[in-house]
């Protein structure tokens, strides 16, 4: 008698079923991951960014401060939340941070995120800053660390 005739047909059936289920499970899991990635990309594409790569200027009598960021959102008519790689640059100094609220009308900027100020031979690390009086006055908040060379 053939050897294969001794194998239980039910056993072969269940074994095949388990393999098929495992295969389907793998495919299904991968599909979920793909869906998540697609959703994330879609989410990014549809994020509520009002301005992409916004640029502003604070005008002073003797200097200009150029403000750039990757994203901007209007909080009100004049107030804009600038996010991601926010940079303030003038001939005398630069400030880098992650989030800033800029007031176009008052020409002020306020940040409560970690900031790095650089000017000639000077570096200031702070927990945020406030630029007002058209850039004449800069207040650095919190525990601050200055290095003068």
């Amino acid at each position, binding site marked *: 008698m053939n050897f294969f005739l001794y194998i239980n047909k039910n056993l072969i059936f269940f074994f095949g079923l388990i393999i098929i289920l495992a295969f389907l499970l793998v495919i299904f899991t991968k599909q979920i991951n793909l869906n998540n990635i697609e959703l994330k990309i879609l989410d990014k594409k549809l994020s509520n960014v009002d301005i992409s790569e916004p640029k502003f200027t604070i005008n002073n009598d003797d200097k200009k401060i150029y403000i750039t960021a990757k994203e901007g959102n209007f909080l009100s008519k004049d107030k804009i939340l600038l996010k991601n790689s926010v940079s303030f640059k003038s001939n005398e100094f630069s400030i880098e941070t992650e989030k800033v609220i800029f007031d176009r009308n008052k020409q002020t900027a306020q940040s409560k995120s970690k900031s790095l100020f650089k000017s000639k031979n000077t570096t200031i690390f702070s927990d945020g800053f406030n630029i007002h009086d058209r850039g*004449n006055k800069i207040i650095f908040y*919190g*525990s*601050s660390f200055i290095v003068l*060379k």
Partner: protein
Amino acid sequence: MKSIVKIIIILLFCVNANARERGETEITTEDGIEVFQNEKYYLLKKNVKIESDNFILQANEVKINFESSLYDIIELNAEGNVQFNSPEFNIIGSGENLQFEVKIEKLKVKGINSKVVTENIEMFSDGSIEINNLTGKFSVKGKNSKLINETILITGETIDGIFSNNNDKKEITYLNVIDDKISYVKNNDTEMYAKKINFDNEISIIELVDSVTIIRNEEKITGDYGTLDTNNNSYKIKSNNQNKVKVIIQDDE
């Protein structure tokens, strides 16, 4: 494993970030900084610590005037519980307020319990202590003003003088002490009282003017004008009224 590597990198970065390099000045504050670009000054607020190659200064609040950029310091004003130490200039001090003019190297400490200590001279006052490191001029003014060095103790309302740097030690070359109540100088075994006391190192003479008293051992001599030669420790006393010089010789027994 990745987390451990990250922690090590962060720790290394922190250690490196806190290591001051030569020629750098590090400032830390607890409550931020206010920079006034047009007025050219900045305020350092709450528990300020300034550390450079030349000195360490701690105070509650510090105002720094700069010339063109923030590093270009021309004047420093520290307020509240000021403490400083300059190993390079061999000077330590403390007071309620400190003012330092960088270009002319003028240091002024003000307030109750003001103190400036150099290698061999100690100055105390409840008013102000002013030292010009370039000219060597110093001035101690106000209540409880006192100057002490190895051989001399001086008290008076106003102590003005000049010191020179000889062999890295500050040596008093000229001294002018004024106190409307009474000035006091103790030199070796001699105590001197007068309203005005002058000392000129070139001629080695301590000059005493008005309400003069000299006490040495058991002798006490009073008059209106006196001189003490620091070379031979001899003294002379005069009175406006020739008969008025008074000598008291005390006997221990």
